[in-house]
């Protein structure tokens, strides 16, 4: 039987594959984390580092909320406030959401497609270390002069005439280092997904999370060069006398905005599509149903990515731009609502007539369509460019982007964390703490960001360190600040849950959720080589097939379905 299995892999149909000579040894000790090329350990490094940056960015947000808690507050100086605005935005985008997805992708892609590692393990390690050093270079600036021009770093404000000291340069290096990290990582994902899928895993049997990581990777490769070019031009403007963005030297500040948003809007989809992929994995497992409309969800992912490259100037509706251009970008932005709506309806249909198991991952996964819908609706409102002339650069936009980025990405990510934590550590997280965390985050989130729509409608611009009490936004801001602290408490409960569960969580077993995808086939945590034998894939849900076969054979093997976790720990 054993020999037969090996023989099967050597048949002419088999794809060329690097076969390890002897089992890989489990690495031990702190130093091994520095030298590891194991995708799972790199994935954990990613997750650990990016969650640290998430905490940093969150603390920055809390300081800003404290400053805005009441009118004419003097907690921080205007300079510090602008520094916080810039650090918070940059951290959350470049050091948290994008790389945390690379972290989940690193951990899960080889496991879900039945591969033993990424295509280029050493490049994979390089990706992580570039990211970490990008973050360190950026955060080092707080000991000198942090950048203050906002995460969008609009010229001419970011030029040396306004901010001559090193903060903006630190930001430029962050963009280069994290950008390089992302491009290398993306190429690695593309090579891995195209070439290393298990036998039988055709495009139509590829998990939706893998689809989304593939599309995420292509988007990164397509979008990042634009911002890399832009920041290089900014660097030469600042230090070598060029005038790309300086009208006095024949340049144009709007060129920066086009180059930045040509990257910046695809970046939005880079940050959300893999999370859409995650909950497309989570919802069917907990609804005990197949995903509804697999092809529609996969196709809409590709459609969103394509259209996402064509909408960048909707960030620039208030700039001097011809109306026909504005109209084009309004219509292109509208069209994205269609594939996004398709996804949301398909998720609802996945839950419809299911047998929904109410575990923490499902709570977070189900919150995503709820909150993202609000962000999507405000997104369509913002796409109507005459309406955007009123709403742009106000707190309405702040609310909108947090509904899609926090309500969308972060809630989905937390769902992913609760869902895959047992696989990564071999232990379950506490359901009680998980649900407490969810409700705190959900209520805190709505309290923080719903009222910001109203603040914006009342005339409160974004990125202001202070406002007049006569503006009538005092109550909104106080509610928002209180909400932010409830939200932070919710995040803290999850941090405690993670720390407690690593040590004391109940043993998870291979397949605690009755998952659909291949990662649940191996042990928790998986061995260094992931799989001793990779099963042939016959459907979208290989684990369902395996459980069925096992049940049919009535064979108490390692792959037997585990009972669901009890209701409480």
């Amino acid at each position, binding site marked *: 039987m054993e020999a037969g299995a090996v023989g099967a892999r050597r048949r002419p149909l088999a794809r060329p594959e690097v076969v390890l000579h002897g089992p890989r040894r489990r690495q031990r000790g702190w130093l091994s984390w520095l030298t590891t090329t194991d995708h799972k350990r790199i994935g954990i490094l990613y997750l650990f580092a990016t969650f640290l940056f998430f905490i940093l960015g969150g603390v920055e947000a809390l300081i800003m909320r404290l400053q805005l808690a009441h009118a004419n507050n003097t907690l921080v100086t205007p300079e510090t406030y602008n520094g916080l605005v810039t650090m918070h935005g940059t951290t959350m985008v470049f050091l948290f959401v994008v790389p945390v997805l690379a972290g989940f992708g690193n951990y899960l892609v080889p496991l879900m497609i039945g591969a033993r590692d990424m295509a280029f393990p050493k490049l994979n390690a390089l990706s992580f270390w570039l990211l970490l050093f990008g973050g360190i270079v950026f955060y080092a600036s707080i000991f000198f002069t942090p950048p203050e021009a906002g995460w969008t770093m609009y010229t001419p404000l970011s030029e040396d005439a306004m901010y001559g000291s090193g903060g903006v340069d630190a930001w430029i290096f962050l963009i280069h280092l994290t950008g390089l990290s992302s491009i290398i990582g993306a190429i690695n994902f593309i090579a891995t997904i195209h070439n290393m899928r298990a036998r039988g895993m055709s495009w139509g049997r590829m998990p939706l999370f893998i689809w989304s990581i593939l599309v995420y990777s292509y988007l990164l490769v397509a979008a990042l060069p634009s911002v890399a070019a832009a920041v290089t031009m900014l660097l030469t403007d600042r230090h070598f006398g060029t005038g790309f963005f300086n009208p006095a030297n024949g340049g144009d500040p709007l060129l920066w905005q086009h180059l930045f948003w040509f990257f910046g809007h695809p970046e939005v989809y880079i940050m959300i599509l893999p999370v859409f992929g995650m909950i497309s994995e989570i919802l069917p497992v907990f609804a005990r149903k197949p995903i509804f409309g697999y092809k529609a969800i996969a196709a809409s992912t590709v459609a969103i990515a394509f259209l996402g490259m064509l909408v960048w100037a909707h960030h620039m509706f208030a700039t001097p731009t011809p109306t026909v251009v504005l109209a084009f970008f309004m219509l292109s932005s509208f069209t994205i*609502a269609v594939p996004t*709506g398709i996804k949301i309806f398909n998720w609802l249909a996945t839950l419809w007539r299911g047998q929904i198991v109410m575990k923490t991952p499902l709570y977070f996964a189900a919150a995503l369509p709820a909150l993202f819908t609000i962000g999507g609706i405000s997104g369509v409102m913002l796409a109507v460019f*005459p309406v955007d*002339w*009123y709403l742009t650069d106000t707190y309405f936009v702040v609310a909108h982007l947090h509904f899609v980025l926090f309500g969308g990405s972060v809630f989905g990510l937390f769902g992913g964390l609760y869902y895959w934590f047992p696989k990564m550590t071999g232990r379950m997280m506490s359901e009680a703490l998980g649900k407490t965390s969810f409700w705190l985050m959900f209520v805190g989130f709505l309290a923080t960001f719903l009222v910001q729509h109203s603040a914006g409608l009342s*005339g409160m611009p974004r990125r202001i360190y202070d406002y007049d009490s006569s503006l009538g936004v005092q109550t909104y801001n106080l509610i928002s600040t209180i909400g932010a602290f409830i939200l932070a408490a919710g995040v803290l409960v999850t941090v405690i849950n993670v720390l407690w569960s690593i040590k004391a969580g109940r043993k998870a077993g291979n397949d605690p959720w009755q998952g659909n995808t291949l990662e649940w086939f191996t042990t928790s945590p998986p061995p260094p080589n992931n799989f001793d034998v990779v099963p042939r894939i016959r459907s979208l849900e290989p684990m369902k097939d395996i459980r069925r076969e096992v049940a049919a054979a009535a064979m108490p093997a390692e792959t037997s379905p585990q009972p669901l976790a009890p209701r409480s720990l």
Partner: protein
Amino acid sequence: MPRRLLLTALAAVVFASLIGAAPALADTFTPQSGGSSNANDIDTLYKLTLYIGIVIFLLVWGVLIWCLVKYRAGRRGVAHQIRGNTPLEVGWTLGAAAILVVLAAVTFIYLDDIENPPASGPNGLQAAAGQFATIDQPTPPTSGGPVLTIHVNGQQYIWRYDYPGTPGTLFSYAEMVVPTDTTVVLKLEASDVIHSWWIPKFGPKADAVPGHVNETWFKVPAGKEGVYRGQCAELCGPNHADMRAWVRAVKPSEFEAWARTKRADIKAAGEELGKSRKARLKAGEVD
């Protein structure tokens, strides 16, 4: 079940805050308006998208909450192994597209009124004496009477307003004075970094970008005299939050009186400057 109760209560709170309170607190959920007709049009357009949005919101949240309550494990038989439904997929794709086509059509219907400045009204500046009547027309020219053009220049952290095309020099800082029932076209520039002009009650923002001239307009209806407040809406440096703008709308006759006084003041200040320079030159304080 307490969890279910909590969920229902939460949904009720959200619904109540979004819809129940809407008529009572209209301005909480809609833009400011009333200072200019384009602001009113934007308000209408916004409300239209909001109503469509509320319907979609209720649909999604309703179905989601229904599913989470109704289809809990153990309550009923088995999970229905449905993999998809093509007519349903096609239906909601076309449905979503149809809503957006309607929204686009309505936007284009309103666009002309929002974007293109109308003629000044009968009680506007044109009805008064003719010193402003020859002011340059915006492009494309509007059908009616003359409009007042003001050049707005954003600087850290103040706005400068120049009234060109009039005899003598007329400008002011921070507070712009305009006549009511008169179409005011603003030509926006910036001399250092990007600023954004915004008076919420007048509707649109317009970015003032160095090296570009942007344009927007407003027309304060007769009888709506008063001070309209706004502030810079594009991060422009540490004191971005302190960069305020005031527009004082007055009757055309008052505007002319203000312009006369202001022009005289500016002239006097210029003469004073010349005198004091000569005096200081004499005293040896300057070269």
